[in-house]
């Protein structure tokens, strides 16, 4: 199923495509020039809709439909490129910027034209220092070549593009928190509605798309809907850059058409190359840390939005994390929820306090070895108290690891309890028997 021609990872087809001149020699900015000189913005929206492009950031929402939500006649509009790639296990955006940056710049500019935005921002996570340099250099080159700025290619179209570097918060990948952060405020999600398309950055209509989504736009405009739809499935057309990690022999980014099975991704010698040490697959997290877990029986699930959802999880950002049988489910849940606790913004109570409590109990199981039988219903209760009650998806995501672990591997929690009991631990705050439960903290 290997691609002979890549849509996104074109560096595999064209060596050194990160060089501006090489990019220009290989169809670079051809789609953009065609769009600006020959097409109307809504024609591009139509093409993107027809191609069935879906958002790669996690939700898989149809991009063309998102663009069509913009209220008519309200300007200015903004285009935001979400490059706050912070989802654990996800690492394709960085590679796109490193190895094929001009396609992203062209995609952002082309999409800005399509939605009639004159300003586009690329919001990069704070850790992307080199990526920001790469992007800024690429943008400079685009300005110098006349692809950005005022009256582009003599068409009267104005598009300015800026790169903004975040300060290192996972929550800023949430679209409204990203806007808050971009406006210079503390990065926290906003109430929805109003949705960004109606009231986004600076309370103006705003479209926010993922890096990979926008990088798909130039090839679609250049080569057409039919070509694009020749990849992938009916509902999930095109290709996806899967970030494969975990106990596989060949972790890395693999661009494959939607519909490839987990088994092929993990076991094909061209991609994952099988499990390290030939140990069995135990847990697969198919879409970043926020996705419910899958297990070995799901190996033949095709990786497209519908099939993964049918299997009980979500394709999310396409970050496939594979764990072998050496991994303890409670420990994995602990590590995952530790991440969410660390990144919880604190705005809403269930997420702020729930993740903290969850991690406390999970730490008792997985790190201290003092898990108690009565902790198990508490764990169930905590995630149920969070589920559906959080302000944004961060808190809802934090539910997934513990909920999956308890649902798929209840016996492992019980085993922890049994082991703790046999070791003579009373399970109280990790203290030996006889010490006070509540220790007064020194001030």
């Amino acid at each position: 199923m290997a691609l002979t021609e890549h849509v996104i990872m074109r560096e595999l087809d064209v060596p050194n495509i990160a060089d501006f001149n090489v990019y220009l020699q290989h169809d670079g900015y051809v789609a953009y020039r065609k769009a600006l000189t020959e097409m109307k913005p809504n024609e591009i929206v139509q093409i993107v809709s027809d191609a069935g492009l879906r958002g790669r950031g996690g939700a898989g929402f149809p991009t063309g439909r998102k663009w069509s939500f913009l209220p008519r006649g309200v300007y200015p509009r903004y285009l935001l490129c979400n490059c706050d790639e912070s989802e654990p296990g996800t690492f394709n955006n960085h590679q796109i910027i490193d190895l094929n940056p001009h396609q992203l710049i062209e995609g952002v500019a082309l999409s800005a034209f399509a939605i009639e935005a004159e300003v586009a921002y690329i919001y990069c996570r704070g850790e992307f220092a080199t990526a920001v340099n790469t992007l800024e250099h690429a943008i400079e080159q685009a300005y110098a070549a006349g692809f950005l700025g005022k009256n582009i290619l003599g068409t009267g179209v104005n598009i300015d593009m800026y790169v903004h570097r975040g300060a290192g918060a996972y929550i800023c990948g949430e679209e409204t928190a990203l806007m808050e952060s971009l406006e210079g405020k503390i990065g926290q999600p906003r109430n929805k509605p109003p949705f960004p398309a109606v009231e986004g950055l600076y309370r103006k209509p705003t479209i926010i798309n993922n890096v990979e989504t926008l990088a798909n736009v130039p090839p679609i405009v250049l080569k057409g809907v039919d070509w694009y739809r020749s990849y992938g499935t009916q509902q999930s057309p095109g290709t996806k850059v899967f970030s494969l990690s975990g106990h596989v022999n060949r972790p890395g980014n693999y661009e494959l058409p939607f519909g490839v099975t987990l088994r092929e991704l993990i076991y094909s010698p061209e991609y994952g190359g099988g499990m390290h040490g030939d140990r069995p697959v135990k847990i697969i997290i198919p879409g970043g840390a926020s996705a419910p877990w899958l297990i070995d029986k799901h190996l033949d699930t095709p990786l497209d939005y519908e099939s993964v959802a049918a299997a009980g999880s979500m394709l999310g950002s396409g970050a496939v994390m594979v764990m072998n049988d050496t991994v303890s489910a409670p420990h994995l849940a602990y590590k995952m929820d530790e991440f969410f606790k660390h990144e919880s913004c604190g705005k809403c109570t269930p997420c702020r306090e729930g993740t903290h409590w969850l991690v406390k109990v999970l730490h008792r199981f997985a790190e201290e070895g003092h898990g108690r039988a009565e902790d198990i219903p508490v764990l169930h209760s905590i995630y149920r108290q969070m589920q559906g009650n959080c302000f944004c998806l961060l808190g809802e995501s934090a539910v997934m690891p513990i909920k999956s672990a308890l649902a798929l591997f209840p016996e492992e929690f019980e085993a922890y309890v049994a082991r703790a009991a046999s070791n003579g631990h009373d399970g109280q705050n990790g203290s030996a028997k006889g010490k006070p439960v509540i220790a007064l903290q020194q001030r």
Partner: protein
Amino acid sequence: MAEIIITVDGVQITVPDTMNVVDAARLAATQIPVFCYHPRLPAVGMCRMCMVAIGMPRIDRDTRQPMLNEHGKPIIQMFPKLQPACTTRVADGMVVITNSEEVKFAQNGVLEFLLTSHPLDCPVCDKGGECPLQNLTMEWGPGNSRFDYSDKVHFEKPYKLGDLINLDRERCILCSRCVRFQDDLADDSVLGFDQRGRKWHIISKSDPPFDSKFSGNTTDICPVGALTTSDFRFRARAWELTSVPSLCNHCAVGCNTTLDMRHNQLQRVMPRDNAAVNDIWICDKGRFGHRFIEREHRLTTPLVRRDGQLQPATWDEALDVIATNLRAIQAAAGGAALAGLAGEHLANEDLFLFQRLFREVLGSNNLDTRTGVPGEYALDDVGYQYGVGVGTNLMDLGKGTAVLVFGADPEEEAPLYMLRLRQIVTQGGSLIVANPRPTKLDRSATQTLHYRPDSEREVLLALLKLVSAETKQIPQRTTGGAELKGTLEQTKLDAVAKLSGLEQAALAQAAQTILAAEHLLIVYGADVLVHGASLSALLANLLILRGKVGLANSGLIPLLARGNSRGALDMGVRPDKAAGYAPLKQAGLTAREMWPAALAGKLRGMYLMGSDPVASYAPARAALDALAFLVVQDTTLTATAQLADVVLPGTNVAEYDATYTNAERRVQRARLARKVYDASKPNWEIVQAVAQALQGELVLAGAASSTTVTRTVGGNGKSGDGVQGKLTLTTSTASPVAAQESWDYITVGEVAADIADLVPGYAGITHTALAQTAQTKEWGRQANEDYFYDGTSYTNAEGVGLQVPAGAELPKATFDLTPPPATKVPASSTYPFALLVQTLAYRNDPFLHDSLLQSHIPAGYIALNTADAAQLGIAAGAQVQLTSAAGSLRGTARVVPDLPAGCVLVPGGLVDLPVATIQTGALTRVAVSSVAE
């Protein structure tokens, strides 16, 4: 706004479609618990306490009608998840379920979560007993916690958010009410957040920290004990307090307060809900500037000067000396040789009797509330004549309302107006702020006009010209139209633009806003009040031309100096008019005229009640020294009282039951909260005692020497002990005057009844009527409703006040358009700068003594425009000298870019920079020079 029907827990109610589910459920008598939601703040939905199940009728796609089940009822489609009630707006047919197991589980869960970090230190927490977190936990929370870790949130404490407000970050549940209050209502974005997750906490972003005049309100709306005031911290438990309705007397807003007392000591001042005055807020001056009520060195007994020393005396002795001496002066030189000054903070009853004493007993019209200091406010009759109509409620105003703020800085002069005017803008109204200099209200304005100092008259004439050009017909009962027309013909817009520095287009835009307004409010302050009618009458002309006189929600709002400035004018404590603005045959002396008269020996005796001219106007000292006899009635031994022959121990607002009239002519009642010190008496009782003593003196004058006067003292009959007792004179029955003029009030309510009978406009305003509230529904939190909803401001159960009609509302009132003559102080080459004196909220005011606000009083400065400073070679921080025809003054220079050229700005009322000493009148021209180091 349409009315729709929703169902809350099976109860159908009709609600406006603009409401959210929390407020709508209240109408169905269902409480949905909230922490972050506050009815005065935009909903944010972050605490997740208000999660409820919500469903909507399923709509048939073809017919767009609700689908019905077999019983003919709409099929309700519930949302898959619970929804926050605060951020969900009601919609027709909505079904809300607040009592299902699912909802209870979620609400229980949020409370259990909150208590995993909250310290539960209720026994030492000031909020204990009136804490939403306590109450919600009892009602909606789990009975216990399964969180068995010693891992509560820990922060250093106490943490001073500002010097007035303490933050306990451990108790904070991060609802952001305080941050949003500061951002959205107070327009002081001084609070923010730092860190994230469980370490997320409130910080102050300003320097000095928590720099806001409204900071105390955040402690009221804080749903836990995280925010406490330095004033009340650890003073008392909420349930030990006796709450007494009172009023703030600092400025003309007349905010309703509650004095929380314990053991006859004031513990704290809290806002009392009054939608027509202060809603549920008070400013920090009202909350913290109250220590004067029980300040040290209070007078506890009358003092009489013997052998050159003021020595304690009984009431009998003191009244005897007063009666003898005042009568002696009256007999020798007539009533015109006597004068009285009274403070504008005193109650209507005090002031009414004071002027009666002078006019009826002593035969003098020499009365004033001012002290004669140059640059003081003129007597504001225009604000009465064309004041806002009865029924005005700023809280209701928005779209269709235009507010013109002229020559006023509401944040400093009457802080609550800042919030109220901002709310009008938030609700869609227009706000034009016109001042010579920028003020904080500019940020909220829809248009700002910064005119050059001393071009006010021309600017107003230009506005009148633009407005009158669009006015087809002058309203009925109007006089002076021809005179105005004549003046306007001479007003040239281009000349005004040149003089004022305003664009003609800006003037036209302001005129358009005024013309388009359905409700037209004009707020004016210090810069107009110093000029008096010469400017305020022009403002009134705008209203008259627009036909907006004598109507509710339109009219003038003068930001008068004190809590009862309007009442003092109404009661006739002034030389030119009697109570109710009744004309006098012959006017008496103004305060300014009294001092030369005293020095010339024409004025020989004075009675000052709550007035301290020596402190505000140094030259008064010599004049007072020249008097033959001086009586001072006050609460402390002021600089003026030290000169007196007799000092009488008076009382303050907390110590007697009385009424006060605010800037919008709303008469309100403050109650007795605190027993008085020893022999002090309510001010009105003292005035009556003086009158009774004088009448006794009159009866016996000539028949016997004053020392033989026989008096009995009421109460316990013990001479001189007047704590609860009341002085009565048995001799008065023999007096022909007494038969004519009764001085036999037993209660303050009788004085108020006399005011109601005798002062036009006050008819029907009795203490009984004032005690009534309107329909409780209109006044914010409803009876028995919990603190969690809108905070710990007090429900108003003791009276929301009654408005006195404006002059224009009286039958047969006429409206005078005649423009007042110009009063110009020409600029000269000797004194090229205009002196702007800024009225500060925090100044050296005796009422702020002993309060926490002392440290907020700024050091004096002289502010100059950047270009002027450069030209004069003056750097910021340098010493400069201001010289006027009256004197000179040195201070530290401040260089500010946004001050207009050609003027200097100096804060007034500061002891380290007594600007009054160089003022020559309403506008002072000065020279500025740098002082060599």
